[in-house]
């Protein structure tokens, strides 16, 4: 059993209007040291034992569906997890 944590964020070259609004909001609260905020998505995928190539499958689903390569980057962490 594997637990996979997937992080999807807008690419550095793409402007993040949501992140910018949050950064400005933090700044108006007095947190002037927060220079930049990028907002993304966090997903947890639970794999059962039938999947042999977990890493290959994770890359495949990230590229096919979980992220849009035109505007987004992804990274992932694979953790072994005990059977529930």
């Amino acid at each position, binding site marked *: 059993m594997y637990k996979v944590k997937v992080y999807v964020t807008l690419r550095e070259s793409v402007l993040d*209007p949501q992140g910018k609004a949050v950064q400005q909001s933090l700044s108006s609260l007095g947190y002037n040291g927060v220079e930049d905020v990028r907002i993304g*998505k966090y997903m947890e995928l639970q794999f059962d034992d039938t999947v042999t190539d977990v890493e290959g499958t994770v890359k495949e689903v990230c590229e096919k569906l*979980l992220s*849009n390569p*035109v*505007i987004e980057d992804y990274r992932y962490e694979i953790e072994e997890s005990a059977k529930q």
Partner: protein
Amino acid sequence: MKFAVIVFPGSNCDVDMYHAVKDELGEQVDLVWHDADNLDQYDGILIPGGFSYGDYLRSGAIAHMSVVMNAIKKAAEAGKPVLGVCNGFQILLESGLLPGAMLRNKNLKFICRTVELSVENNKTMFTSSYEKGDKIRVPIAHGEGNYYCDDETLAKLKENNQIVFTYASDVNGSLSDIAGITNEKGNVLGMMPHPERAVDDLLGSADGLKLFQSIVKHWRDSHVVNA
């Protein structure tokens, strides 16, 4: 000419599109559910606006994995007109039938109002009834219509005259004020504004009707003898 309006769970402009074609254009049209695997009987495919699958993950991301998308790709390859409006445009972008992606509107607001568009290219099967440079009034209603693509793609879009409609002034932050683009072949058009909501003066504008009339004219010219 016979049109299919594709319906996904969460589509909400499907009925508007249906009536625009049936009542204002006077052509045949069916509402077609997203699990259809064959669209061979249709001459034109219309993908309406809405919030397919609740916009989960990204707008259009889940819909582009539907069964009907294979049939839509086949129709596009066959050169049939494929029009995606609003969420339909987002689905076409996700499916790769059109290049680029949509970001949140620059001002982070859902914008719902009638805007002025410029017709940038009238040499397409969707715009032949307009003049180049025409200013038309068409409603928009979207939160994610901020068109984005890389510099290389944008240069290609310009070079091939694939930018068909632009906003007359900056509305949502779109690159080059892009409101609608076609594929390279010119038979797939995606646009954020809703031409189906501008087909009668009673609706505030009839400027969208010419778009549908252009499609029919193009079809007649190639399918009807002595058209």
